[in-house]
């Protein structure tokens, strides 16, 4: 056996979760390590709950077993809690604090729980890092870079078995030239948000 790193990325379809998982996979290849990524395509992309996994090192498949995630990266608070089965006490949960209200709540069929209670429950299971990824992305110049903010936060949280420069460089290699600066700012914003914790 050898070292394994398992990362779960969750959020809402359309928030860049799949893109973030793909970039993380590419960065791992660039760091000359073995990797499998699982993605969800199709129906769930229409505003549904989305989860992707990235597994690095001595792994044979892309799916993560219960309680064995090293990090859970979420673009939305309840989506982090929805996938709490992957967490253990040492898991780092990094989540954006901004809510995305599901239509089941908008139409009054269901209720969105008190977000502080969501954070408390996350904290009771794992190490919680809350960041205002939306605000950081806005300041960087584009709200669609929220996923990049979260990748920056992941890079700063000591989970990845390779240098964060490799991840940043992979991001920059995969965006058009005119968006490089925005993405770099978003990534650095994510790094700083974790440093403050």
């Amino acid at each position, binding site marked *: 056996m050898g070292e394994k790193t398992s990362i779960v990325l969750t959020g809402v379809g359309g928030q860049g979760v799949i893109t973030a998982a793909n970039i993380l996979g590419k960065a791992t290849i660039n760091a000359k390590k073995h990797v499998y*990524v699982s993605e969800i395509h199709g129906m769930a992309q*229409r505003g*549904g709950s989305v989860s992707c996994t990235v597994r690095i090192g001595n792994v*044979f*498949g892309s799916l993560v077993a219960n309680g064995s995630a090293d990090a859970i990266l979420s673009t939305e608070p309840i989506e982090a809690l929805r996938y709490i089965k992957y967490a253990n006490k040492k898991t780092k949960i990094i989540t954006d604090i901004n809510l995305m209200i599901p239509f089941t709540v908008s*139409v009054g069929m269901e209720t969105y729980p008190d977000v502080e209670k969501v954070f408390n429950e996350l904290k009771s299971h794992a190490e919680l890092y809350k960041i205002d990824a939306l605000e950081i992305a806005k300041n960087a110049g584009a709200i669609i870079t929220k996923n990049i903010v979260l990748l920056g936060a992941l890079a700063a949280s000591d989970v990845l078995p390779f240098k964060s420069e490799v991840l940043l460089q992979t991001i920059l290699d995969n965006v058009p030239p005119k968006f490089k600066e925005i993405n770099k700012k978003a990534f650095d914003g994510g790094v700083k948000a974790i440093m403050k914790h």
Partner: protein
Amino acid sequence: MEIIESRPEKTILLLGNEAITRGALEAGVDVATTYPGTPSSEIADTFSIIAKYLKKKGDKPSFYFEYSTNEKVALEFAAAASFAGLRSLTCMKHVGLNVASDVFMTYLYVGCKGGHVIISADDPSCHSSQNEQDNRYFGLFGNAPTLEPTTPQEAKEMTRISFEISEELKLPILLRTTTRLNHARGPVKLLNPRKPKGKGYFEKDPMLVPVPSVARAKHPVLLKAIKQAEKISDESPFNEIIDSNKPTTTGIVTSGVSFNYVREAIDDLNINVKILKIGMTHPLPRKLCEKLIKSCKKIIIVEELEPILENQFKAIAYDNRSDVEIYGKSTGHFSRLYEYTPDIVTGVLSKIFDVKNPFSKHIEPKLKLPSRPPALCPGCPHRATYFAAKKASPKGTVYPTDIGCYTLGKAPPLEMADLLLCMGSNAGMACGLAVATDQKIISFMGDSTFFHSGIPPIIDAVHHNHDVVITVLDNRTTAMTGHQPHPGTEYDGMGRPAKSIKVEDVVKGLGVEDVKVTDPNNIKKTTEIFKQALDFKGPSVVVSKSPCILLENRAKRKAGSTIPVYVIDQEKCKQCKLCISGFGCPAFYFADDDSIHIDEQQCNGCGNCVQICAFEAISVKKGGE
């Protein structure tokens, strides 16, 4: 473009589906066809992206690719290319093979010439499907040699080598994948692509016309070829006993992605077994299977869905007078339902081997979380059509629906999907309901679905004068599977200009007298049109035409124009809640004080809410996007 421009021997990260495309390119594929369907879509989309990329660069792609009208046409097209000696590939989702099964079953009798790989992307757990059928049965049913990859790397190699096996056996090959392979990314080592033939030549041969005498002569040929395939299976590098010399009398037999879970579980549980990993699952490598059976007292079969390996293993054990114990689905250890996970496989193996499962028990959130099912996007023109049709309908109206984004109209508050079976089923069921009941019927299908299989039931409606309203939600694309073109679009899968076929022209040509075209974004007029269609005695077709908002907004952004955002004037809003509890646009939400707002992050700027608000409380936000 990494997938075609990386040097051979380089390792790149590819999606399982992209790896299949790359494998076909390395085998020198000439013709690739499909009808899009999750989880298969990116195989074909990758051909499409490559063709368009090369066209832009002024290069000619080395292959011909098309999004065919449906899976049956796709398979017929590629089979013909194979008869002309070219290497062909056809990909589809599992239920697509039902559509193409008429071709498939007889194609195996006739046999192919150029290598032909047929990919069936199965969807255990129904992530994006109406059932979770196990298409390995099609391999057994039609006697098609069947391969099942476990990783993207293996998917690429199996695709490449399947062309060779196909040519050796003169049979098309079924490459059966599952969602967790199609949508898994992994490292793939590239090889040098073979040069395609370009053009073939059709040699006439009376044995290519399976009249009864030919079919009777061809059936034994097929059985002989499958016997020959057994030899290939026995020698295949994709079939192997791992740790065959381990001093153990327990074996695990597994295929597809289940192998990955087994492989990690034996490390995590520290158990002593040998594994028979089967990549070519039809015909089974009989000698290898017998070798395992003879060396084991206990065999555990790990395969998702149907007990296909399990039943065959029991038969082989019987033939060998073996009393080996076989654990699997029939012993209640594994389920025939849904996809497997590392937890399921590790859990079952820990019980069988009586060792501790290292993974924690499933923790459930204590707080009750609201569900987040997929929904029609904010700004989706289908929402406007549904709202109008519902307004026009008397109580008790039945809404048969079809496969595509519009199944999402099932959700409250619209609840505009009452019955669904398969592609094109809306209109056939509309006709049946019109005869079986006195209820009013309005059915719905998309434009791509109309061309795929929606036309024959309309002919039925015209010929028998069934009193139905059939709606074609014409958003100018195949939206749900990733915006692929179809016969109604002005370009094809290779990015070339194509003849656009208008839905209304086809319908008129079928003899429908009451054909109406409407822009659903005019809700009042569309409601009126549905009322008229309901009043018409006999079949009516409403073509509700407006492009997918995602494509429209993408085009607007590209052109540099801004997408408006709408806001609610809180002084004018009377809290009637029609925008939320009637229209159901996901961009609307209640604030803590129960006032209603529009989420700027979600609003796609269609403005249809302005039309439904009786108090003129909604308007464009000043100052742009």
